[in-house]
């Protein structure tokens, strides 16, 4: 089949079709030319849809339909998608009173808050250090800090499971060495007070380098003339950092906090592997609970309701963050 010529722009379409139509009439094939003209017009109209269709079809199959179906499922009590009993808002009503769900919300919020409180300053500190002109082997350090982000969550969870083990784990041994009064028997996974901090430590290891790369790029894009002007005005290094650097990297900070919040609320692999999938009140997260309900208890309907509750929580928290950021921007 010969390849079709490219579709001409609209202005030239009329002249092109006129030329072709005229030539066709001269050849005595008026009808054939007319249909070809229509075909070209049709192609012109359909081409964008054709090019968009692969994405649209995939989006409908794997995003839109599951989303719609999960809304429907959340209105049913189920044993798998096949056996359903309509309960209306029953799943949502139970969700509001479900102690484990609220424990999972509290744990996830605690994790997200602690994680962001530590991740952003650590990443910023590393980025500032790497941005220093005095530092040698900058690329090496940049790669070294970022490389932890290249490994999978499950791998990290297994490694930290070993590192945090009582008596034999590297971290506990170090604690025992430097703080003998604490000893080597900190039980990170069974002590309710230490469980989420253990997850945060593992999460920081994997994500600080990633945040640092963003912040480093942001630091490098701050206009140097502003620093020169600040120096001329007699600003100290701290004042420069506070009044030039921080406002300059503000959009990246907001982005990192937003992405970190969404990622924090979607936390699953780390606690699931670290705690061996055991149901615990002190380490359960929203997505872990969703998984346990859907794939262990087999209640897909209730799991869908948890999923939609998670959507609402993330939406509300993100909205508040954006509003606060915008309000501060207005004040500034």
């Amino acid at each position, binding site marked *: 089949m010969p390849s079709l010529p490219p579709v001409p722009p609209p202005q030239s379409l009329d002249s092109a079709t006129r030329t072709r139509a005229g030539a066709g009439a001269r050849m005595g094939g008026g009808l054939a030319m007319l249909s070809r003209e229509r075909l070209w017009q049709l192609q012109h109209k359909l081409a964008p849809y054709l090019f968009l269709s692969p994405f649209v079809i995939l989006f409908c199959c794997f995003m839109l339909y599951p989303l719609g179906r999960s809304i429907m499922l959340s209105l049913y*009590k*189920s*044993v*798998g*998608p*096949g*056996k359903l*009993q309509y309960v209306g808002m029953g799943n949502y009503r*139970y969700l509001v*009173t*479900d*102690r*484990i769900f609220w424990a999972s919300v509290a744990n996830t919020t605690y994790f997200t808050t602690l994680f962001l409180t530590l991740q952003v300053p650590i990443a910023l500190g590393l980025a500032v250090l790497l941005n220093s002109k005095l530092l040698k082997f900058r690329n090496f350090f940049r790669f070294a800090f970022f490389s932890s982000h290249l490994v999978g969550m499950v791998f990290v969870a297994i490694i930290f*499971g*070993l590192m945090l*083990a*009582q*008596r*034999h*784990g590297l971290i506990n041994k170090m604690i025992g060495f430097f703080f003998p009064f604490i*000893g*080597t*028997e900190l*039980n990170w*996974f*069974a*002590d*309710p007070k230490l469980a989420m901090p253990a997850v945060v430590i593992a999460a920081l290891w994997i994500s600080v380098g990633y945040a640092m790369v963003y912040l480093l790029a942001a630091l490098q894009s701050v206009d140097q003339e502003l620093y020169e002007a600040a120096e001329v005005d007699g600003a100290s290094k701290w004042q420069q950092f506070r009044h030039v650097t921080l406002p300059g990297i503000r959009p990246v900070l907001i982005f990192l906090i937003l992405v970190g919040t969404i990622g924090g609320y979607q936390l699953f692999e780390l606690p699931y592997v670290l705690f*061996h*999938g*055991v*149901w*615990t*009140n*002190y380490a359960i997260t929203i997505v872990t609970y969703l998984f*346990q309900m859907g*794939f*262990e*208890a*087999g*209640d*897909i309907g*209730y799991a869908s309701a948890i999923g939609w509750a998670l959507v609402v929580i993330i939406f509300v928290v993100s909205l508040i963050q954006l509003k606060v950021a915008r309000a501060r921007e207005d004040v500034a």
Partner: protein
Amino acid sequence: MSFHLGKPILVMMIIALIAGAVVAMRPAQQKADLTVWVFADSHYKAYLPLIPEFEKQHNVKVNLNILNARALAVRLTSMFMSGEPSDEAPDMVEMEIGLMGRFFRPPIKDIGFMPLNDRLQESGLYDRIVQTRFAPWSKEGVIFGVPHDLHPCVIVYRDDLFREAGVDLTTAKTWPQYHEACLKFRDYWVGRGFKTRHALELPESSSDYLQVMLLQRGINPIDGYGNIHLEDPRTAATLAFYAQLVAGKKKVTQQSSQGIGAFTRDLTEGSLCSFIAPDWRVTYIKRYGAAVTGKMRMMPMPVFEPTDSPTSTWGGTMMGFPRSCKNPDLAWKLMEFLYFSEEGMKQRRESTEILPPIKPMWADPFYHQADPYFGGQKASELYIELAPKIPPRYVSFASPVATLALNEALIRATAYVEEHGDHVDQQELEANCRKWLADSAADLRTRMDQWRFD
């Protein structure tokens, strides 16, 4: 040569093409007459040499696959829930006791496994297997699995270290006496600077071992008919006692680290000097803890009251047959061959210490020999003596939540004990435990109503 999208994209495309070609050309697993899923490495190794013999006898092809236990359960749950028969679906599945409850949520007619009462009766297995062992694999009297084991529990301890401390553990017949012996042991070793030498392995915030003790008293958090037993006064008393073992001034326990490697290291280094041991655990400690050969001993579990069982049960496996099984008769024959034939038993004895659930098989001389690991003690004979006394253990779709409820009550109880130091008021602690367990039971009841699918 140049590529207009850049070299990295070209390299990625080449890698993708090669990977795609390798995946496409990989030979598919040969279609089999029976597909078996197992999760335990020791079982897999025991069955693998038996498969060719069975294939030869019946002129069939059998695929034996090993999967991670959780992955196996999730895949099977998804297959059962989807309701669509799949080529990948197994004909026989070994299931771990802790993962079984989830399959019991639907009404009996919709449970994904085949009911086996008739087959067990017809084959005579029903009368030969220890009756209480059908409990975990049954719902409302309908049996869905053939037990692979019994897993009676004993106490295994470092005889050398207890002797050195001047403690004779065998005289401790009750749990309070055992606690006293452990306190004496602790004081002796702490006095000599061994701060990480602990008398007993027990976790502080997980109720797995608490449930082992409760089973001794005949208490299942949820029984086979869905009744909740958290409000039983003996549950509160056991919880209060357990909390004082693992917390406060009279603490004599510590938790083992994750994994069998760390646990056996704790054992050989003398960090954990006694522990509750079902037969499967003995296999691992003998394999990885050879350094303490001859220094170990075992004894029946202490009891709370004379009517309690001197043993309990921990862990377990069954063979189940999904309703989509292509050839149930052939699958049943394979199960009998792997579990109860002479060849199957020989393989089991070579790879594990696990006692079979059929009483006449215990007469084998293998189970009556002196064990050098235990200083010449006839370890298997102790298990055989205790095996008929194992209490029935039930599992339910709500078992994980019942465990969670017990964990929560345990955390509160240990916090209470830590808070009160030397002045723990036993009656107040028990009263609090009763209240916490009642709260948990009420929550569990509501949840079971929410989950019930009739």
